[in-house]
């Protein structure tokens, strides 16, 4: 599973402070640790507090690229912030994210094509999807916009949108079914991604709920997840799930073996 490290996000207080203080070491430490723990992509989000979002995005990208060359997922609702970032990313970039809203697709799909970037598509329009049928409807809109623009669908990551289990308990199963159904939309199929931590928002057992859900999603064929790779129990659970799905060859030290990849 492609692990997208979520920690460089201005929603976290330490990151917001590092952005405000221009504290390179703090950001680079988080980047290095996440990669060492198994992140294949780093999410970069300046957060709501940054005084100048474009400048903050550019500073974060430059700072991260001084210590690692893993691909970056540029996470913002603002197209101009993402585009400023795309100009700077040396390795592959992923746009995080568009929705199925036409005005957004009209901006982000051509942008993904222009910069050769991956694209995360949230399967929602104005509101949150109510069930798997709505999710599939929005997913189909995003897929067809990408097909028309000639985007390789293996570069598209559809996000069925996880909702907190304490407010929308029935949605977890809808999401799991969507992960499987999205694969039927095209050949080759689009990829799937979830922003995992939302599932446990506001609960007391966040780690347990996160890793249990991620294992269930892995069993449905989930391709990528935005998670905290420094959560060792979570990573152990993913590695073990993939082992049981016959994606790696077993050996007694299978956790260690996976981490040596």
């Amino acid at each position: 599973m492609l692990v997208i490290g979520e920690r460089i996000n201005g929603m976290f207080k330490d990151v917001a402070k590092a952005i405000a203080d221009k504290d390179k070491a703090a950001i680079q430490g988080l980047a290095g640790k996440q990669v060492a723990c198994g992140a294949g992509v780093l999410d970069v989000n300046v957060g709501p507090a940054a005084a100048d979002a474009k400048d903050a995005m550019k500073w974060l990208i430059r700072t991260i690229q001084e210590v690692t060359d893993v691909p970056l997922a540029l996470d913002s609702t603002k197209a101009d912030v993402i585009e400023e970032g795309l100009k700077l990313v040396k390795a592959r970039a992923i746009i995080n994210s568009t929705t199925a809203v036409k005005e957004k697709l009209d901006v982000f799909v051509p942008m993904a094509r222009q910069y050769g970037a991956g694209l995360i598509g949230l399967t929602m329009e104005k509101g949150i999807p109510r069930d798997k049928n709505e999710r599939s409807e929005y997913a189909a809109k995003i897929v067809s916009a990408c097909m028309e623009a000639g985007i390789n669908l293996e570069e598209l990551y559809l996000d069925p949108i996880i909702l907190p289990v304490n407010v929308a308990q029935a949605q977890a199963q809808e999401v799991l079914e969507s992960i499987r159904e999205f694969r039927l939309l095209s050949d080759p199929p689009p990829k799937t991604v979830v922003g995992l931590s939302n599932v446990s928002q506001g609960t007391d057992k966040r780690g347990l709920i996160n890793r249990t859900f991620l294992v269930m999603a892995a069993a449905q064929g989930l391709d990528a997840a935005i998670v905290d790779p420094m959560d060792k129990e979570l990573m152990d659970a993913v590695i073990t799930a993939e082992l049981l799905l016959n994606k790696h060859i077993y050996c007694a030290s299978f956790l260690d073996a996976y981490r040596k990849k």
Partner: protein
Amino acid sequence: MAVELVKEKWSNAINRLTIGATKEEGGTRTSKITVGGQTTLPYLFDEGDMPNAPVIAMEIEDKEPADWPQALKEPFKDVLSNPVEWAKKCVNEYKAEILCLRLRGTHPDFGDASADQAAATVKSILEAVGVPLIVLGCEHDEKDNLVLPKCAEAAKGENCLFGDATEDNYKTLTAACLADGHNIIGESPIDINIAKQVNILISDMGFDITKIAMNPTIGALGYGMEYAYSIMERARLAAFVGDKMLSMPFVCFVGSEAWRAKEAKGLQSEHPEWGSEKERGPLWEAATAMSVLLSGADLLIMRHPKAVAIIRKTIARLMKKG
């Protein structure tokens, strides 16, 4: 309409392993060999590259082998009790590119030669021939742990290949190879999970994974060859999609396996319908070698010069692209 074949493209390559060190590299070898580096299943040149052809190592022993049948002893009959002359014969007469010395004479039940005697044998072979050397113990763990470190030290700088490290006995040999700069063979009993585990155990000691060769253990034609074949193929498929702990070149002990089979060594006098063992034995060895070549073998340890000649020609033919 022409049928378009589906072609696989893999993300990971097999490690390159070099055996032998020339003067420039701090050794005294006049040649060295490199295996591995593939980006495709064997000989599918349309899908990827095989930068290095498989290599045949000829096997010799430190004392006259007790269990070799007459048909196998015949080509070496004047040198069997002298490993240095045996080594020279393999290189000069049979054009061996690399030799594999099995120190069977150190086994407590087969001569119990001392570690110093074994090290002296290794040294004298290195002095007598210029090709790179593989050194094997006697498959008695305690004795091997005394003998092989001494031999590794005696061959320091020559970048030999030492074996075998197993799941239950790998620390001493790994430490010795690490200290003296040699390559190591990790052995597993036709078991892909243990193969991977042995590689991890060795690498956990700080050993460079590109200096490990995998001995998956094979079976001869008629004795589980198909098990070995499928294990090797499965390991390769995992390696090509990114499993670094299975990305090592394969070393296959073709000679020792093939010549254990009664179909190889059985006498014509006892089995008249089988034909002459002088022909049949080498053919059994060659057929076993052929099968492991097609499942991805990189380094073949072989015995009979006739089988070696057949497989050398076969490799050249297989490697002809297009």
